[in-house]
């Protein structure tokens, strides 16, 4: 399963931030790291475990579309346990 490393930038709204963090925390595929303030925004490291790279892309795009998310940056995707056809090797 591919493991994606993301940085999610949250806009300065406490209400929206809570909703986003609660929503992401409820998703078993998501692990949240320690958020850090950056200017008025907040940056959250996120690890995403998905079945396929396509699912990772769709999920990252869904996060980016959430109200209160300024942007999602993809730091990397480790899919070293997938073979050339995209199927898991272990």
């Amino acid at each position, binding site marked *: *399963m591919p*493991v*994606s*490393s*993301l*940085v999610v930038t949250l*806009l300065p709204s406490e209400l929206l931030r809570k909703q986003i963090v609660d929503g992401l925390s409820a998703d078993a595929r998501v*692990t949240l*790291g*320690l958020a*850090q303030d*950056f200017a008025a925004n907040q*940056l959250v*490291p*996120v*690890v995403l*475990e998905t079945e396929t*790279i396509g699912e990772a*892309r769709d999920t*990252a*795009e869904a996060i*980016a579309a959430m109200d209160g998310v*300024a*942007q*999602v*940056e*993809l*730091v*990397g*995707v*480790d*899919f*070293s*346990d997938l073979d050339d056809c995209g199927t898991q090797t*272990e």
Partner: protein
Amino acid sequence: MKNQPTRRELMKRAAMIAATTVISERANGAPALPARYSPHLRVVDGVQWDKAPCRFCGTGCHVQVGVKDGKVVAIAGDRQAEVNKGLLCVKGYHVGLALYGKDRLTQPLLRQDGKLVPISWKKALDVIADRVQKNPAGFAFYGSGQWTIPEGYAANKFMKGGLSNNHIDPNARLCMASAVTGFLSTYGVDEPAGCYDDLDACDVVVFWGNNPAEMHPVLFSRIVDRRSRGETVRIVDITTRTTRSSGFADDVLLMKPQGDLAIANGLLHLLIARGTYDKEFVEKYCAFRGESDPPSLNGKAISFEDFKREIAEYTPAYVEQLSGVPARKIEELATLFGDRKLKITSLWCMGVNQHTRGTAMNALIHGVHLLSGHFGTPGNAPTSLTGQPSACGTVREVGTLSHALPGGRVVANEKHRRQGEDLWRVPHGRINAKPGYHTVELWRNFSTPTEKGGDIHTIWVQVTNPGQTLPNTNELFYPSRKLKDKFLIVSDVYPTETTLHADLVLPSAMWVEKNGMVGNSERRTQQWFKMVAPPGDARDDCWQIIAVARRLFDRGFAGMKDKDGKFLFAVEENGKEVPIWDYRHYYDVNVDRSLFEEYRPWTRLKHKDLAPYDEYVRAHGLRWPVVQQPDSSWRETKFRFSGFDDPYVAKGKTYDFYHSTSEDGRAQIWFHPYAAPPEAPDKDFPFWLCTGRVLEHWHSGSLTMRIPQLRRAMPQAYAEMHPMDARTLGVGNGERLRIRSRRGELELPVWIGGRGAPPPGTVFVPFFDESLLINRVTLDAHDPFSKQPDYKKCAVALERLSTEAGTP
């Protein structure tokens, strides 16, 4: 061992560390990652991979770029890319090394007391702003088909929308301007109807003065590899010297320089005389055109009977006399074109475009395809190739030519100017109606003393090397360097012949050191993200333009304000303007995305629709027009003007040339007679000189000569000649020869029996070598419509210099 983390847990930990590290670096002032989500980005064994188009030619191959510790460490062909399907040429495989030459320019340099000395960016921007304010009308920009689309768009807006000055022209004027005028005069709109898919479907491919085995090797492989799969592809090579491409050809038509005009006319004549032209296609979809007096790009309408009468002169015997190609071979090629069961694709590039009759030659090739009906279905296409990665995307589509505006608009048309002013939100009247100087005129003017009418006082050059690539540099380039009031600004990544003579040198970021978008030869728009930091104080060309614009804005220069008084390049996020003119904040937002979305409405004005930026992030390029479908997806177009694929063809029509210059949906078949070249060998200068490129080096070699593998493979320029001529002159391989024209001279080693084989009376010299500048010798005569010079034929004298041996 108990409690040992599983591999999966380690992967997750590494992913969390990576994300946290990025955030920590950001908090500590490190530059932000480009604002992006790249679905192509992945990490394998610590190397981060992402997609990018190759930096070099107009083919538009995609590479996978591997980055580790902030450096490009690996390159691979991208198997998902339709253009190259994982294959690269020798330049493409080494493209990453182009970033790491030892002499990268890393700080701004200003000439003081004859020497280039380091200065700050602040000072550099002030110097440029001063030069603009000295006299905005005398400030010029000389750009490139290597500008990214956002860079070219910013430069165009800076000049035409900001300075009310159309003196902006690109080096692409020297390589594909005749293709543009050929398309415009034939179809009323620029760029090929077909695409590379034609190469997979054709039965015959005709190279018109083209050597794709060296210049577009991946496309050439795409053709010849079909033979290894048992398919038959007949190659016809029309050329003035046999090349590596000729070695794969079934038929080689070795012609005299300028003989292509006769050959094309000979084919048109035979198609009509034999009755093998496509009568139905011609009657329904074509009109005929002849040259007008005075000459004009659209000429005059003529009848089929007029055309038949004019072309009748070009019998095989007469064509043989003009071109040197045996009549039998002309007849054989006409037989191929007369067979509509065959699918025929023509390819051409500089041989046809760098021609004083370049517009005519382009139109004639289109005419051969239209008259024979070899048009508009997969495998049947006249397709011109480009030499630079964004000659199409940035020059032809963004309109960075001195007469043009983005989206196929022109400055001379009042309606187009109003559209442009509205799109740029500048006051009506801001865009100047008078076309600026084209390349040859611009540089000639810059080299003319002010008191003698040379009204260009400053040229800012980006992403090109005119000191090496202009024709007849002794007249067009060097004289300006002795004129005290002429100021040359050059943005580049390495020292070149141009920076050597510049007054101000700006260090630029290149390729994956910045975000970018380009457009290749088949109308495919491509995108990539910044992956590594540029060295030292090198910065994006686009930022340089915006930063100068902001300097002028801060000084109150009215042209850098829109009609509401806002900065011309303002980018807002969350309702606040982002200070992108401050390089520390340039990547706080995606400036490319912002400029591209601003540019997109222009593209719909002439049916060259581009999709939103994010669609290009996902794709390996899309071919325009890209049109949104009812399900919201975006669909590209492979075959323009063909009802089965082009969304702009009227419903129910098989073909529709919807920008027809005759305004009746028809394409134009031209009669352009043969005309002698502007200079031909004579008693004093008895040889033809042809110039061009080689496989290993790209253009002036400023990048590829810094790649050790490529430099070692082809270390210097040479004079390629026929053994008989060598014997007559008494020179052997490696011995030195002086080549002299009416304009200049150069000493070179001789190469006999090398890569190409010129016929007797011809010498070929590549132009990549900055230590052997052949453009001191070439001719600046140019096509009357495209203004593109002829680098392929001029008259020279040859003289043996010594018997010193050595291999070239």
